[in-house]
């Protein structure tokens, strides 16, 4: 019998999700899936270096992955099959430092492959051993910390409305990962206005955090050229050249965005300036998947991200809809796979734990994923007032959810931000939320008209 291609094997071995069924590449039935997982377990990791799942000549992401592969680092596991790699990752031998040293020797496809053979507890166990620490104006990803992106979106970018949500989030201890707005209007004039507003706020209240407007990299570059205060450069990325093209980007353009942002030199304690978002299914929805399963392509997006040493990267796991991840179970598994794969590849992974109203999911599903990700050592989540994004029309995690997971697992915000929270009397001396007094200076925001 002819040997199945790695691409086909990975797709068949992938745990069930609607996007792979839609693409027509999923296993035909449960037995077919487990048989493929057994074959994948016996596949040597070496094969991943000699058989690119998308040809080297056709795709710049394939070229990036293979050109940057660190063969010396790879030696630790070079004799393993995928199955042996899974078992080894669970041993004490594979400790934090060993995994960090190995990371440049791993390709996204290897990491995707091993994740497909892992149970939820394996994904959590191994990811919890990975510490990925980044810095700009504060330090994100330290052990026993848990950060939050404050997402104060407003359907018309009304500045007072945005500030109201920012105040709400800060008073719940959120905003240490970034204060990041998805703008309703992408014009440079509007982006500039939002950037200046956030910069004023951060400067005036001496908040040890960074701001970001989540617009296209070309718009960010234009804003920089127009003199706007840009802390971080945002971009959505995917795992194939063609899908990235549908986002209007190339690897070179990302480099330009990074260089332009670095030239601003606005970080006080670190130089990680990129913020990326990803999500399983994006390549299929752009008809740019090359017959590769959505989870492997997602890992390849992390292969793109690691080139640019981001401050933050998060999968927006349930946003894309039920044709890619049908229900809570599929969203949960995907969120943990994405977190695991990103961490193994050395990325500061966060997760937008979320769902849309046409998916079979609710707040209980989000609570489960949040609790599991907290235990897996996830770097950050989103914080949205009441979990309801009134601009993007989906549900994510709330400021209350962030307080829950920090309280449950005894996790603190980024240390610089935690100190600020205490200074502002938002946290007490034990690092717990305390009731905000009417005289709190932060509440002056309410009297300032924008």
């Amino acid at each position, binding site marked *: 019998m002819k040997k199945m291609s790695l691409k086909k094997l990975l797709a068949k071995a992938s745990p069930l999700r*609607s996007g792979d*069924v*839609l693409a027509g590449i999923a296993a035909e039935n449960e037995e077919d899936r487990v048989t493929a997982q057994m074959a994948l377990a016996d596949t040597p990791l070496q094969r991943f270096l000699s058989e690119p799942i998308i040809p080297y000549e056709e795709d710049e992401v394939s070229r990036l992955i293979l050109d940057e592969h660190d063969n010396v680092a790879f030696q630790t596991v070079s004799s393993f099959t995928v199955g042996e790699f899974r078992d080894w990752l669970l041993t004490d031998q594979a400790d934090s430092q060993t995994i960090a040293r190995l990371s440049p020797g791993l390709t996204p496809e290897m990491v995707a492959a091993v994740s497909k053979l892992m149970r939820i507890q394996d994904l959590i166990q191994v990811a919890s051993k990975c510490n990925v620490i980044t810095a700009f104006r504060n330090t994100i990803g330290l052990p026993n910390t848990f950060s939050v992106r404050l997402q*104060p*979106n*407003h*359907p018309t970018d*009304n500045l*007072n*409305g*945005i*500030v*109201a*949500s920012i*105040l*709400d989030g800060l*008073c719940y201890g959120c905003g240490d990962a970034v204060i990041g707005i998805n703008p309703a209007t992408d014009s440079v004039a509007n982006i500039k206005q939002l950037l200046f507003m956030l910069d004023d706020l951060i400067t005036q209240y001496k908040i040890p955090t960074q701001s970001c407007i989540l617009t296209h990299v070309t718009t960010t570059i234009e804003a920089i050229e127009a003199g706007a205060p840009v802390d971080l450069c945002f971009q959505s990325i995917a795992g194939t050249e063609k899908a990235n093209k549908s986002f209007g980007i190339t690897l070179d353009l990302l480099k330009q965005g990074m260089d332009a942002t670095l030239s601003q030199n606005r970080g006080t304690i670190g130089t990680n300036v990129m913020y990326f978002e990803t999500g399983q299914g994006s390549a299929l929805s752009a008809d740019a998947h090359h017959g590769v399963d959505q989870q492997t392509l997602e890992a390849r997006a992390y292969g793109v991200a690691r080139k640019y040493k981001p401050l933050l990267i998060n999968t927006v796991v349930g946003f894309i*809809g*039920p*044709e890619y991840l*049908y229900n809570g179970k599929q969203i949960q598994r995907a969120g943990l796979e994405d977190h695991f794969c990103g961490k193994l590849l050395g990325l500061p992974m966060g997760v937008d734990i979320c769902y*849309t*109203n*046409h998916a079979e999911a*609710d*707040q209980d599903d989000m609570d489960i994923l949040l609790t599991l990700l907290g235990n897996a050592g996830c770097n950050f989540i989103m914080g*949205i*007032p*009441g*979990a*309801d994004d*009134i601009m993007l*029309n*989906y*549900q994510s995690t*709330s400021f*209350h959810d962030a*307080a*829950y997971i920090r*309280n449950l697992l005894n996790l603190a915000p980024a240390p610089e931000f935690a100190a600020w929270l205490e200074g502002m009397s938002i946290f007490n001396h034990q690092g717990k*939320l305390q*009731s*905000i*007094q*009417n005289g709190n200076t932060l*509440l002056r925001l*309410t009297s300032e008209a924008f």
Partner: protein
Amino acid sequence: MSKNKLIITQDPWEKLRQYTDARIALGRAGISLPLKEYLRFKLAHARARDAVYQPVQTGDILSSLETDKRNVLLLHSMAPTRMEYLTRPDMGRVLNHTSRDLLCSEKSGFDLCIVICDGLSAPAVNATAAAVTNGLIKLVDQTTLSASPVCMVTNGRVAIGDEIGSLLKAKMVVMLIGERPGLSSPNSLGAYITCKPKPGTTDEARNCISNIRHGGMTVSKAVRKIAYLVEEGFRIGETGVGVKDKMNDGYTPLLSFRTDY
């Protein structure tokens, strides 16, 4: 002090709610969401969920349509169930065989074809689709433009309008479709305007109007905007990125339209 005030830690910035519909200043029970707020959220989610699964009230819409002179064609996509509709967008873009045969047997060759489609929110369609259709037809009836029978599709996606338009040989399709429901807007109708519709048309070739609902864009404004985009589409021979919305407030589109087609 009321019992509630003893249990719930209040957030002293309620007055900021005047600036945003975001769920701010909710207070907390311990560090958690107060039950009252959780139930309020749950009700909104329940309504949005129900919106996805409710059927369109076809009979009510038929009786509200002021289309005595035209018959209405009832069509169905290839997606037989709601579950398949949600997981197989490809099936929602294509008519089933019966519907295809029906359209093939119809008279064809029109300037305009209006399609009403459930999409992801039947309540949106139930609430406003008939009114928008009536408004458009009223405008079209004052011009020399010809309109096809109104088509009503179940389990359809936006692109199914391309197949319908091409089978009826319509020069322009106006697709009215229920949008992905949000917590605060489970009943939002979208309108997609596509010139020279044919299967395989991509989204850059359409113009879209969103958020037509009570509390969002009004029916009369939506009708004017749609009519304007139709007029512009005819004028420049295409829809999509080439058409810019520059309509003046006082302008009533289509009324002076004299078609050369």
